[in-house]
């Protein structure tokens, strides 16, 4: 029996979407750095990271409901709601800020649980349930912040948006003198490390029964149910994780802008971009296929395209057209799977 041997070919085939997305991202980012006047410097990378993290977190939030074969149209709305909440609670001394941070994540996770409960026990399709709850979240956001404003702890913002070195010095964990020993590591942007931290939490979760059930439900809900997997728990957990990560994205948005803003069009843009990122990252909207890493690359690809516009000085007015065309092309690439279909009936399943 060789079934337990690690098979490289299989491992690659299972991750072809992630690998492709990673390769495209690497190429685009390389092109960006080669043509950037300042080249590959910590400052440029840090700035890029700050501009990408909100979308990366939103894409990660979208990944889990897509894995169960659903979708979460409230990602952008929960982000905006948490952003507005953050502008009320994220100021003051360290203790108040920590409590506020916990409150933000708790509220967004609770909202995700509510989405899950409506989907599971209300038996409403995720697309419609989250469309309705997104209106509620946006309404709450507007109640919290009728006009843009509010206050965010600048210390926390510096802590989360700088490089690792800045964060460590800022938090008082190391003194300025030690910095020389940390030169390369210290230059890593903190926001990207936060994304890695979120990913690191996801890996063990994925190996739990609930985590496995999420993918199983996406592959075949009937089969998962018949095998005795906890289908309702998996679905609620999927939406809870989505809400939590969307909340993180909202908090990060607050870190960047230092204010709360109930920007309805922006919420819609983030939701749609998160879906696009998940698909570019190799996930299949019917469920069961996809992963966090792929979605991270998908979101980064969307962002790097915009970075490249700055370097190659593309006329601002045609940028949206180029961006749209690239998106359309990137999505159409997945039609190549048609070439591998042997039985035409397989197309319709």
């Amino acid at each position, binding site marked *: 029996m060789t079934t337990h041997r690690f098979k490289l070919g299989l491992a690659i085939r299972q991750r072809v979407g992630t690998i492709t997305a990673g390769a495209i991202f690497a190429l685009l980012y390389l092109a960006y750095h080669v043509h950037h006047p300042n080249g590959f410097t910590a400052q440029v990378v840090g700035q890029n990271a700050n501009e990408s993290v909100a979308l990366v977190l939103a894409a990660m939030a979208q990944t889990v409901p897509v894995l169960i074969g659903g979708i979460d149209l409230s990602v952008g709305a929960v982000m905006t709601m948490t952003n507005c909440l953050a502008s009320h609670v994220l100021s003051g001394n360290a203790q108040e800020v920590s409590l506020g941070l916990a409150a933000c994540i708790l509220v967004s996770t609770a909202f995700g649980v509510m989405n899950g409960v409506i989907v599971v026990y209300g038996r409403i399709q995720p697309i419609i349930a989250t469309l309705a*709850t997104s209106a509620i979240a946006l309404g709450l956001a*507007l109640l919290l912040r009728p006009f843009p404003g509010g206050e965010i702890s600048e210390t926390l913002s510096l802590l989360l948006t700088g490089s690792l070195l800045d964060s460590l010095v800022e938090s008082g964990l190391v003194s300025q003198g030690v910095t020389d020993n940390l030169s390369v590591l210290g230059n890593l942007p903190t926001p990207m490390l936060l994304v890695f931290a979120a990913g690191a939490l996801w890996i063990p979760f994925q190996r739990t029964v609930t985590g496995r059930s999420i993918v199983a439900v996406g592959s075949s809900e009937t089969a998962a149910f018949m095998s005795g997997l906890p289908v309702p728990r998996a679905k609620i957990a999927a939406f809870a994780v989505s809400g939590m990560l969307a909340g993180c994205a909202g908090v990060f948005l607050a870190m960047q802008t230092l204010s709360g803003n109930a920007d309805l069009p922006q919420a819609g843009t983030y939701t749609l971009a998160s879906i696009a990122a998940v698909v570019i990252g190799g996930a299949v909207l019917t469920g069961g296929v996809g992963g966090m890493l792929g979605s991270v690359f998908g979101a980064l690809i969307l962002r790097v395209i915009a970075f490249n516009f700055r370097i190659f000085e593309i006329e601002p007015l045609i940028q949206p057209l180029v961006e749209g065309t690239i998106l359309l092309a990137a999505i159409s690439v997945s039609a190549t799977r048609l070439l591998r279909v042997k039985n035409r009936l397989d197309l319709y399943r």
Partner: protein
Amino acid sequence: MRITVAKWNSADRPVYIASAFVVLILAVGTIYTLVAQGTATLLSPSYLMQQLQIGSFLGVVAAGMMIVILIGHIDLSVPWTLTTAAMLATAVGGPWAILLGLSLGAVVGLVNGVGVAYLRLPSMIFTLAVNAVLQGSMVAMTGGTSPQSQATELMRFLGAGTLMGIPVALLVWTLVSVCVSTVLTRTPFGRSLYIVGNSEAAAYLSGIPNKRVIVVSFILCGLLTALAGLMLAGYSAKAYQGMGDLYALPAIAAVVIGGANILGGSGKYRGTVAGVLVVVFLNSVLSIMQMSEAIRQIVYGFVILTMLLVYRRKA
């Protein structure tokens, strides 16, 4: 007696509930105006006509959206199909304006349909990308500002004109409704929409040209969206940026409130009309009650959820 019970359980149930809800909204609004202003503004024929005229644009979009939802797909390119059709039509002007706008809608629908039916790409993401391309081309064409060109006389007639006291837009919506419901219930194409929506594999095995059905559905949706864009440009006398933004999601909401299954295969056209009326009158009553945008959004969300939860309950 047994027949009426069966009917109550049938697909008509959401239609009755949605219609009852429209009456409820109007009643609540009227009580409010009677108490606050001492008049029943909501029930005056001119006010109702005006609301129905505004609702016609959403009604025409929802008719197209319903066709696509019936086959189990969705069209998220609606916002910029609508805007692009209006912008191109006003930019060209003259007798060809309407024809050009409608052709644009048909071409967008064709592209969507080919992507979904032949390339087998998920409609949600493919139409989203088409929307981005359309938006990009309009930003390139207009420079990101609203064009100065005016709507033609015929477009103004369709959007803002009246015929014997009835808004032409409402007549157009009525005509579209008669056509769509006839197609859905009395033509082989209409029946095949339901079959493809229920099971595309079964449709294929039964010899239904499922790919062509999908392409034609998307073309019809594109055409109706473009028509709504031309009417809306006529109503506001010109095309403007973001004019389509308020139509895609409310149209989907209207179709679903009308009882159609978002996964395709079931739903009555009557329900979609009732759904459009719910959305339109809910908006108008909330604005009469001077509710803030925040409260409106929350009420809107709760209404969609509550209606769907009620539909799920067995009578």
